[in-house]
């Protein structure tokens, strides 16, 4: 299967701190990869590089055949807009917009807003009845589901999650994970997700463990 992500010798250092040491990673199209590791081991750094939020200091990184290091700022913005969806632990929803408007905002930055489609996306994540509520009026799990709707609305080929369930209890975590699996099975996008939670990692196809900026161990959970 074609690789959606291919990195070779990928590094990122902040001054003397080497947050990511030369890393070779290949993620095939459609795979769900989980990244685990101690705090400060460089997981978020890797995710930011994959999402085009940051630039590497060395090595190469290719997502869907595009060399991210060679893209201009505009090119990177276009890449983020068209190819990736990102979910954070802190959901970063706009507090004064409703759930529906938050999703439509993402459509607006991508192309043009389409209310029916945004509504459908929220229905898919089980929030058809909370369209007009603001983030403050939603529970943590619901907010995270709005984020998922927002992340998938532009049909990205790659979904990145930085501890998306970090704030959620067991029940909500299971709900969000089930939802992600369903969506992935329907839309066939790839997922790279950072987590500290062993249970969450079990939902993925493969887990990599990082320590001090290096990939130290890899385990396959399901056959690809």
């Amino acid at each position, binding site marked *: 299967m074609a690789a959606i992500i291919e990195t070779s010798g990928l590094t990122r250092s902040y001054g003397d701190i080497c947050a990511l040491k030369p890393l070779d990673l290949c993620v095939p199209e459609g795979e769900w990869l989980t990244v685990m590791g101690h705090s400060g081991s460089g997981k978020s750094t890797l995710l930011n590089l994959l999402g085009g939020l940051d630039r590497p200091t060395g090595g190469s990184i290719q997502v869907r055949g595009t060399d991210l290091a060679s893209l201009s700022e505009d090119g990177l913005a276009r890449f983020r807009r*068209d190819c990736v969806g990102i979910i954070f632990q802190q959901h970063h929803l706009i507090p004064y917009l409703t759930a529906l408007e938050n999703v439509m905002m993402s459509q607006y930055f*991508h*192309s*043009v807003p*389409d209310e029916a489609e945004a509504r459908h996306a929220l229905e898919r994540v089980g929030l058809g009845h909370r369209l007009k509520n603001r983030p403050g009026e939603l529970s943590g799990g619901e907010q995270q589901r709005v984020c998922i709707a927002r992340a998938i609305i*532009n*049909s990205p080929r790659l979904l990145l999650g930085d501890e998306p369930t970090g704030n959620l209890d067991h029940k909500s975590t299971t709900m969000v994970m089930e939802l992600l699996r369903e969506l992935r099975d329907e839309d066939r996008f790839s997922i790279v997700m950072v987590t500290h939670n062993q249970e969450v990692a079990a939902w993925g196809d493969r887990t990599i463990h990082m320590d001090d900026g290096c990939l130290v161990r890899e385990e396959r959970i399901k056959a690809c």
Partner: protein
Amino acid sequence: MTALKVIPQLLCWAVLVPVMSRSLTGMATAVTAAAGFVVGVAGENLLLAYVGGELPFRPLRGVCGVIFLLLWGASVWALYRRGSKGSDAEAVSSPGPLAAGLAASATGVLAGALTLCRLAPLDGGAVRLVPYLSLACAGAVLALAATFPARYLPERLAPRGIPLLALVVSALMVMACSVQRLDIFSPLSMEVMKFIHDFVHQFFESMLIPDHPFFRSDVWGYIGLLFSDKVGLWGGLALWYLPVLFIALALRLERLPSVAHIRQGAARRKLLASFIHERRLRLVAPLFALVLLTGAAYQSRFPATEYWDPKPVEVTATPAGQIVIPKKGEMDLEDGKLHKFSYSQGGRQARFFVMLTPAGQLVTTLDACAICQPEGYGQAGNAVICYYCKTLIPLETVGKPGGCNPVPVPCSVKGDAVVIDAMTLLNTWESTVQVTAHGKGMGK
């Protein structure tokens, strides 16, 4: 120095050719346009040399009027046909090479002819050889050089069909309106004013509006607005801008191609967004045309030509009620220039001027005509110009009544002085000029 006068024209030309060559057939368009420009300049000179007379201002102004009407027609058509089948405002988007060549060369001829008129001396006479040769060269070189920037003009910004026509026509309007005798904006606003004037007049006449005092004071206030000197300007501006606004509207209202066949939401929205973006880009041409038209109207309102316009000299009457102005006093009344005076008595006031006509006769006229607001006259070469309607009145006809001619006042030459009856002067002023002032809602 004279060369500076044609800079706006040549600038317009330098913008027009790359756009045309990008939208039509490229280099070939630029060459035909360049050839057209040279033909326009040379043809006009040959005409002048063999037929004589002066530059063909009237026919040229006629042509300008016709192409402006053409733009009107095209804009209405575009608005009418919009969205009936895809992008219809651009239905004529790719004319054949012959049509493109014809259009380019016709534009060139007209541009050349209009630009040469700007060089023509105001007091008539032919343009000298050197300026005219250098103008022809400049036009041709600019047109050919324009093919280089044309390559960098993004394809999506190159207007087609009617928007291109709007751009061409408005550029030609800039070229025309900077020449007093080619200007069509001022006559347009003048016509609008006359039309509204007549219409309101006839309307009230036919309605037999009762002369009730209450009714009059209220309603006349509003009717006064219709007679104000701004109504012509605003009406003229409306007629001036509307065709291009129609075209912009037609483009804006154009139905977008259907994207319903694309299943995936994101891809469908992406395509839709690109269509919207393209439609927005197409508005650039009409917007630019609006800027050009504004430039043309501005040139027409505030012509760059400088007029001989002396400050009126206060005069007084003798106890017998006569105004006596010596022929060779502080100024020489017989130097062929216009000399302005003003006279006031007991709150009544009149402005007039004295000048020697080419026929050798000293005439006295009001500094106002019977139709326009009394903004006065200036002298430019062998004509005086009414500042209000920008009509040029040949010196030969000054002193004769009618039209926008300054209203004649009887005078007599006694010895070496011009004598005018003060009462006649004031009465003439009040019986002609104040009539319009009444309409303005200030009188009565």
